[in-house]
């Protein structure tokens, strides 16, 4: 038996192996007409959340599982989803669904766009696959070979004892209380402390005429919140893998508490244009909102994105530093031995994960796609078909979105910043894909003079979050410089991908999905903060 530090891969649960066979048997019924393309997606997400605050400890044990039957008739993607997985119900559901699609007239005047499902030969020749994916595909793979992708992990989260998990969280709270005085907080200042750990296993199966795929992802997250009256700081770590993804170091707790102490005497920012150094999470939010959302092909296909027009015209929308990638295949985030938060092996429409450049030195490339948007726009498919859950519809969504790294160290960028602000803590963001506006929320700013932190902290003009706003190309032309991935070292980067934070993303004000947000430190000049 492997010990806790050996690397293992997450296998598909045995009950799902049997379900996979049942679902495979239903595919011929779904492809009832020669022109139809049918597929089946099954998802099961199970999570345990352990939480502790100064008054109580708690456990929430949640699960959700359902199957989505899909028929694309060349015009419309029809879906029928259910969580009743009995064979009798699945057979009845498929029969009713096929009848519903047969009864749906084709829209007059619309274009027929047939979809030929890719074979494994097509899949393996459509660009370079990450070794983590390629090495899990059998050499003699055929359309009916079950191909399973399992996430690597060291410390098995499924063996986590609830009592031990809660004791560790309580120990974190205790540590925060003990460290508070040396961070400048009186005992009475720390009015609320909470810690929350979530461990989840997420399994999915995708079946179409060309492939039988499954994946098991293990998702870990840990959040610590400290408050003093209404001032609040929080720390969040997470990734895909084992419990090694949620280790918190004591200096991170010290920073959390020092920032909380500083917030108690924070100044209010005078709105205006400033020089600001974004930390990795904020540069990730900027990438996500700038040419992440507007490079989602379903938004383009709906006529709702300016990026589609700018891609066609080749107009420059940023300077030489403005290179943005989306990559669901980050299996080592920032050189750490676990996968980035927004990663997976294939998306929820069965497309294998690959890195994609969305913006190349200020020029737009083709957008990210899901099945129907790729067909409507006539561009290549990418692994960005995602849904909030099996019960929600599929959209083109981002995975891990970030700027390409630069060459500077953090110390070098602080020196280059001179007088301005360091911004490390995000507070949401919003896209404006057609109007090209941008909003990046910042919890608070740390003042920098002469390249060094002054210890002064600034909140927004009304005492809340600060918003960076502006016209997206203007913001992307204001990038002065970027850091390396390993920003503390002058040596060349050994890590292939930057660190990505554990974040989430909504689309059109709903449809919440996990998304990684990270990248390098990034220096911006003359950006509007208010």
């Amino acid at each position, binding site marked *: 038996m492997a010990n806790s530090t050996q690397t293992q891969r997450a296998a598909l649960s045995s009950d799902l192996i049997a379900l996979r066979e049942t679902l495979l048997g239903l595919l011929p019924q779904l492809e009832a007409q020669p022109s139809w393309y049918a597929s089946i997606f099954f998802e099961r997400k199970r999570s345990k959340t352990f939480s502790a605050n100064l008054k109580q400890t708690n456990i929430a044990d949640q699960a959700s599982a359902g199957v989505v039957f899909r028929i694309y008739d060349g015009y419309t993607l029809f879906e029928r989803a259910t*969580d009743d997985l009995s064979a009798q119900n699945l057979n009845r559901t498929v029969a009713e669904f096929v009848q519903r699609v047969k009864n749906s007239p084709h829209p007059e005047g619309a274009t027929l766009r047939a979809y030929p499902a890719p074979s494994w030969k097509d899949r393996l020749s459509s660009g370079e696959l990450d070794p983590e994916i390629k090495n899990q595909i059998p050499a003699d793979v055929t359309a009916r070979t079950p191909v399973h992708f399992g996430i690597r992990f060291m410390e098995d989260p499924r063996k986590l004892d609830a009592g031990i998990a*809660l004791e560790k969280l309580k120990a974190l709270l205790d540590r925060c209380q003990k460290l508070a005085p040396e961070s400048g907080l009186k005992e009475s200042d720390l009015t609320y402390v909470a810690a929350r750990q979530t461990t989840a296993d997420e399994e999915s199966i995708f079946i179409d005429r060309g492939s039988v795929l499954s994946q098991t992802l293990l998702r870990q997250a840990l959040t610590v919140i400290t408050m003093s009256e209404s001032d609040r700081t929080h720390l969040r770590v997470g990734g895909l893998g084992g419990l090694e993804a949620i280790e918190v170091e004591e200096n991170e707790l010290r920073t959390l508490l020092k920032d909380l102490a500083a917030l108690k005497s924070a100044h209010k920012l005078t709105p205006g244009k400033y020089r600001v150094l974004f930390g990795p999470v904020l540069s990730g939010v900027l990438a996500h909102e700038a040419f992440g959302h507007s490079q989602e092909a379903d938004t383009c296909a709906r006529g709702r994105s300016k990026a589609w027009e700018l891609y066609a015209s080749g107009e420059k929308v940023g300077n030489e530093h403005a290179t943005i990638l989306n990559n669901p295949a980050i299996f080592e985030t920032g050189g750490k031995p676990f996968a980035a938060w927004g990663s997976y092996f294939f998306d929820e429409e069965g497309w294998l994960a690959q890195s994609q450049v969305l913006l190349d030195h200020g020029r737009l490339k083709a957008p990210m796609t899901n099945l129907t948007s790729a067909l409507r726009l006539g561009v290549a498919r990418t692994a960005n078909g995602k849904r909030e859950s099996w019960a929600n519809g599929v959209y083109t969504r981002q995975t891990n979105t970030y700027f390409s790294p630069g060459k500077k160290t953090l110390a070098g960028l602080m020196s280059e910043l001179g007088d301005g602000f360091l911004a490390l803590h995000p507070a949401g963001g919003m896209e404006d894909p057609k109007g090209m506006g941008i909003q990046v*929320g910042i919890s608070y700013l740390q003042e920098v003079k002469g390249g060094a932190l002054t210890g002064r902290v600034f909140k927004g003009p009304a*005492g809340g979050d600060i918003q960076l706003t502006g016209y997206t190309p203007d913001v992307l032309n204001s990038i002065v410089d970027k850091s390396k991935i390993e920003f503390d070292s002058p040596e060349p980067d050994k890590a292939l991908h930057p660190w990505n934070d554990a974040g989430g993303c909504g689309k059109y004000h*709903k449809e919440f999905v996990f998304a990684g947000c990270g990248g390098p430190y990034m220096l911006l000049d003359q950006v509007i903060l208010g």
Partner: protein
Amino acid sequence: MKKKGATAWIITEEHVHRRERYFMLDRDALVVDQDRDVHSYNIHLKLFVDIGRPGRQGEISKKLFTALPLDEQLDAAIVAAKQTDHQAWSLPLQFPKEVPDIKTSDPRIAEDMENVMAQLTQATGKAVARPRESRFNSAELFLSVHDSELHLSNGLRHRSSQSRIYSEAAYSYSRKKPNGAVESDEYLNTRWAVNLDDLAIDRLFDETADRARHSLDTHKPVTGHYPVIVDADVLATLFNNHLSQLSSANSYHGLPFVKPGDELVKNATGDLLTITLDPSLEYGADTGAFSESGVSQSPFRLVEKNRVIATATDKRYADYLKLPVTATRGNVVVEAGSLSHEELTRQAPKVLEILQFSGLFADPNTGTFSSEIRLAKLYENQDGKNVKTTYVKGGSLSGSFTDNLRAAKLSRNRVKRSHFSANNSRGEGYYGPEHILLSDVSIVG
């Protein structure tokens, strides 16, 4: 359910049926890009156990599966719950025999969702076909019915049903600039409702198309402090957020808390707020007869003319803090003001009306809020008369509930708003002024 080790339990069963369509144009033909039909059935258990310490108990929330052996699931829940540690409390011992007849589900949707989807699809087609200067881009239409049953170990059993409707429309407008380049912008409008009569699909499309038409006639705001009008959508968010400070949960956990007797807005000089939690509002997003812990709900006034008069307290916190049990759920109902929308726009030489924020972020702890301005109108007035109105886009607004509501003026017209999100099984409802005029709000251009 009787199980050794369990002292009490709450079970919620929910069957959800959803129908969804995404619409867009294909060579000028309106097409359905995706058509979805979803059935789900969930059983959630909240279990309470004795942990052998006086005044303490264990608790767990767990999803149960009918396909798995129930005993094993319950045994696992009890073992896990015994690891947790809460101050003890008990479920209510009394509940009414008669439940008031409240309207939570549109019978047209509950009885024939397919027919309603067909009717709304037709209405969408007609709205799209209407000649306009702006161009239709896309729409979404979601219908769902949530049939729930609440079972408590104290004997309470209650069935309820809620219908939900979501509709969105996006229009864009483009024109050629003198240099030949094409400029374009769009407007996206969304609306949640519980019954069809509150949806007003034609109005949604008309308003969206009109605002898209003006999306290019904009200028950035000049940095400064303005009187600002925001609408009921914004008010619904701000009030639903801020009222957590009037809850005994906040008091117990040491979170920001405004106690009875205090002013909600310190030193208020404008219209004084009167706020009621109303769980009986017809077709409200948070209309319901019982709280999740089985407490019977009825309208409950929290704020009277800006003075906080009560603390929303469910049974758990009533036991913890030795307070009376009150309603804790309900739609936020705010008394109307006296001014018309037009009068609000003329209250100062310059008044900015926010038509839409890009993404409003409101902090329930600080009461602050901020957002980029997606579209706004700037009214310039002289001698109380409007002399110029222009459209504004860009820049951001930064506000504070306690500072910017001090001299607020409320409109006399009231509207209902609903909102549902994935992370909350209950919706957020609002019935109150359609507009509010905030004072001295920081705007950066």
